[in-house]
């Protein structure tokens, strides 16, 4: 745990330093750009709130990937599950209008169920036909992309707009603002706590963790692998679907636009990988990437550094965090070997308490 925090900080700091050097070489005002990056993401109330709004769906897709990968279930379908979740919320929100107290839970539930059904399709293919979810979820992403595109260019198109999108959903389904803070972040935090609790305090969570570490051991110990596999798949899909709901019910648009949520799916996978599938880690890295993405707009505005620079920064962070995890390990090993040999050579007999091996 301590080592994770250390390598995490090490990775982030070295990534930021490398980013600084890149900016400098490119001839941009490097320090000023960084200042603006953080200025527009955490240093004022408004910017901090936008960062949180960005983080809300990202944390959910991150959890979706983390729960899957951590249980040896390679769900790579966050993109598709998110789109299906968002589209289902849009459809229900367009055609049903109830008081907000009922409407909001109904829409959230819709997203959860539709996301789960969509990942459940891949789970079914795996359990019934032994098709690898890693392939099927990827393929289903395309299906979801073109299916939703069809809906917003055809049956659900808002004809008054000049680009493909639906109409706004009924306002009773909009998540309220709390002093200009979007409430989506609260939903994400509650869900994170819930997932953390399941992962660490239930028998099911224990079984998932064991499956993630050694499926055969779990099987031999009597864990019902197929049943758990389906459960993880459904939960993973539900989380991504819920991220889709955040995009429609939160924010300002409240409609399904072309290209909505384009990055959240893969950024979620990235977040889980960087966090090594830890639940807390996913929340923290989700926030960090949200900071970068939100701040990049301000940076572009103030210092003309293209906001795409943040993509480079993200990539470097991923590489450094993952690499420092491994290299810190190797480095520590190398050091302990050298120390041990020195100890041997100096004649200082090391402790004789190893009873075997």
């Amino acid at each position: 745990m301590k080592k994770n925090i250390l390598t995490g900080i090490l990775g982030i700091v070295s990534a930021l330093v490398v980013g600084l050097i890149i900016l400098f070489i490119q001839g941009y005002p490097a320090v000023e750009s960084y200042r603006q990056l953080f200025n527009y993401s955490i240093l004022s109330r408004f910017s901090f709130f936008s960062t949180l709004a960005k983080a809300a769906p990202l944390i959910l897709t991150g959890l979706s990937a983390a729960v899957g990968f951590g249980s040896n279930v390679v769900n790579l379908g966050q993109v598709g599950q998110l789109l299906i979740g968002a589209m289902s919320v849009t459809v229900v929100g367009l055609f049903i209008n109830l008081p907000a107290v009922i409407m909001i839970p109904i829409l959230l539930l819709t997203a959860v169920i539709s996301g789960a059904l969509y990942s459940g399709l891949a789970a079914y293919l795996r359990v019934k036909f032994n098709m690898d979810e890693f392939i099927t979820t990827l393929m289903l992403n395309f299906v979801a992309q073109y299916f939703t595109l069809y809906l917003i260019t055809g049956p659900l198109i808002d004809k008054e707009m000049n680009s493909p999108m639906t109409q706004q959903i009924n306002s009773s389904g909009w998540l309220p603002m709390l002093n200009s803070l979007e409430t989506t972040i609260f939903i994400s935090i509650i869900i994170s706590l819930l997932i953390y609790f399941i992962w660490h305090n239930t028998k099911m969570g224990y079984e998932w963790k064991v499956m993630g570490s050694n499926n055969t051991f779990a099987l031999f110990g009597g864990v019902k692998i197929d049943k758990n596999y389906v459960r993880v798949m459904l939960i993973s899909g539900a989380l991504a679907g819920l991220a889709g709901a955040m995009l429609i019910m939160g924010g300002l648009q409240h409609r399904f636009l072309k290209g909505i949520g384009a990055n959240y799916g893969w950024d979620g996978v990235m977040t889980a990988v960087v966090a090594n599938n830890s639940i807390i880690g996913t929340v923290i890295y989700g926030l960090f990437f949200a900071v970068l993405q939100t701040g990049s707009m301000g940076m572009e505005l103030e210092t003309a550094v293209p906001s795409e620079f943040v993509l480079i920064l993200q990539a470097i962070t991923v590489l450094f965090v993952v690499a420092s995890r491994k290299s810190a390990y190797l480095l520590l090993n190398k050091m302990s070997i050298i120390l041990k040999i020195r100890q041997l050579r100096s004649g200082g007999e090391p402790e004789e308490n190893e009873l075997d091996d």
Partner: protein
Amino acid sequence: MVEALIEIDSLVKIYPPSTIAVKDFDLKINTGEIHSVIGENGAGKSTLMKMIYGLTERSSGKIKINNRDVKFTSPQQAVKYGIGMVHQEFMLIPSYTVFENIILGVEPTSKLGIIEKKEAEKKIKDLIKQYNFNLKLKSKISEISVAAQQKVEILKLLYRDVDVLILDEPTAVLTPQEIEDLFLRLKKLRYEGRTIIFISHKLDEVLELSDVITVMRKGEKITTLENNNLGKAELAKAMVGRDVIFSIDKTKANLGDVIFSAVNLNYKDANGIQQLEDVSLQINSGEILGVAGVEGNGQYELVRAISGLLDLDYGEIKIKNKNIEDLDILKRRREMAYVTQDRKFMGSAQDLNLMENSIMTHHRLNDELSYYHPVLLSKSASIKFADNLINKFKVISESSKQPISSLSGGNQQRLIVGREFMLSDQFIMLDNPTRGLDVGSIEFIQEEIINKRDKGAAVLLVSADLDELFSLADRLLVMHSGKVVFNTDTARTNKEEIGQYMLGAEMSDSA
């Protein structure tokens, strides 16, 4: 004194973070001798050899071959220097033929890159004839016996003209008769001037075969002795570091009712091979039934069928008069303890900690691990459970929160055996429970097995180690080609007879 062929000077290997596998090791190996390196499992024999062979990087020290400093980074380099190794696990491609496996990597090719078979075939055939190997070039590896596969491994090295053969525990997979055969061949090789390094932990074999014996313990060289008039007890003491009792205290079995019975188990695998054929067995309370057999003759299928890991085509399994053949794995685990043959890949999750490895299966069966509600898992109860297990089975560890991979093999196995033994007192199934462990852990686990028996458990013990079967089992079965070919009281048979049955009457090397 003659110049040593291989000279090792203060060699050290440390596995991170701080396990010393080999410690300041000096060794001289001369041309034309059979030099045995003996030591307990985990003494560092294999690590030492892997360093010589270029498979493992040394941490410090020197290796000289023909008085030249060498530092191999791959086995290919070692082979160039005339050193070859036969590993415990064979490095053969099952779907390739004997011929293809032998030439793999050193194919004689024409300028156009086409394999020129004739020359190679002749060379191999000559070798086969010279050493009386009884192998057919066209047989597929997957279709020949383990002993024959080992011959292919040796042939592979001879084809590459190596002068030094390192054999790592070559007898572990062989029957007594096949071991004799191997020894004759090794002696012939030595006679022709080749050098053989023989790794083993079996004293009898080492005494029979070697010219020089080096004893290794905890990574250190204890002594190197010429093999004349050496006594087994003295060698064992050097190896283990204390007096060793060669037999286990065991009272006569006190049989009770039939606890476990299996009737006519039949199983055909996906390739249509009959892995189990009409296997029937019965175990009473207070009895240990040993199952012997060359590996791959249905023992593993039998164990898996009983635990519910494979679906039988036909057959009936009962524990205490209750049919279990249609129950799922978890429901069967309620009635039985099961120690799997492979602690790393089946018996534990290496990344997880001792607590998480202790509560497997118990988490569903033991109500004390729940917390308010059966879906919840209590952290504190789990830790308490694990600590109790660690205490009871003398698992040497610092905390139940350390990963199981940080423990030695013996301690890992104590934890696994403890976990399983706490599951059931009535039926216990053990698949090679002491394979690859240090003597201390072997003794401890074997004593626990006998304790369980004396408390009235029915024990099914599958083992590739005949010594273990003879010291523990009250009754022995031999499996061959998926069938039970022999069933006897342990007291009424001997290893040679069991070995005969293990080989099967119709079995031959080239089959």
